[in-house]
């Protein structure tokens, strides 16, 4: 008689459990999610617009003011993630907290913090981009490609 491999058995149990969870899990309340994503995401952009307007009123050029606004928002995202506020916000806001640049900052801090026990160089230093890295890879790949296309047709 063949004794079922303990590994396989365990995997089968996990699969069975997962499919059961999928069946029983209530459908996500789409409208509620969308409402909160819209409101929180919108408000984060309003805060950024207030900072942007303030900087431009102070005589800063549009490009610089826009850069400074991004830097401030990234700082706020990092700080709020560090003190644990941003992830609480994310539970309600969903994409409203992911899509703005504060969300980019959030995944950087969250993934880096998680690997602190592996040290400050290959823990924090490496995992800073374990989630946010692909974003930069694809961003630069696409924008460079567009630049090359323009070069061909210029």
């Amino acid at each position, binding site marked *: 008689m063949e004794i079922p491999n303990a590994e396989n058995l365990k995997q089968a149990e996990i699969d069975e459990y997962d499919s059961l969870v999928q069946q029983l899990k209530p459908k996500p309340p789409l409208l509620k999610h969308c409402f909160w994503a819209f409101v929180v995401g919108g408000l984060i952009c309003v805060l950024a617009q207030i900072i942007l307007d303030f900087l431009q009123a102070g005589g800063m050029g549009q490009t610089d003011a826009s850069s400074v606004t991004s*830097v401030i928002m990234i700082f706020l995202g990092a700080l709020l993630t560090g003190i644990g506020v941003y992830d609480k916000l994310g539970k309600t806001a969903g994409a409203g907290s992911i899509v703005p640049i504060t969300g980019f900052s959030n995944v950087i*801090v969250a993934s880096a913090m998680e690997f602190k026990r592996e040290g400050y160089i290959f823990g924090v230093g490496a995992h800073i981009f374990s989630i946010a890295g692909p974003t930069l890879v694809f961003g630069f790949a696409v924008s460079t490609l*567009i630049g090359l296309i323009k070069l061909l047709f210029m």
Partner: protein
Amino acid sequence: MSLLMAFLIGGSLCLIGQLLIDLTKPGITPGHVLVVFITAGAILSGLGLYKPLVDIGGAGATIPLSGFGHLLTQGTLKAVEQKGLLGAFSGGVEAAAAGIAAAIIFGYVAAVIFNPKE
């Protein structure tokens, strides 16, 4: 007025992100959403379709990650005009330099100072 438009455009972009999470296959992570937004922003910007959104929405269009993609593409295109081939490689990083450096520095410092909750 600029605040209202920032709210509406920024909110709408986040709503699209939420639809992406809720209506596509399970297992989509925040990382995937960010990649989709930066890529879409960069492409739309290359086609000249993102600039109007920035003109209308201000920070509502630049603060979502699609705005970061727009920044990369516009920086690249401008540098290509000035420096040719070199610009295709240098323009994006130059335009996004402040944001990327801020993300690395603030991100690193925050991760060192604070500990994960729970």
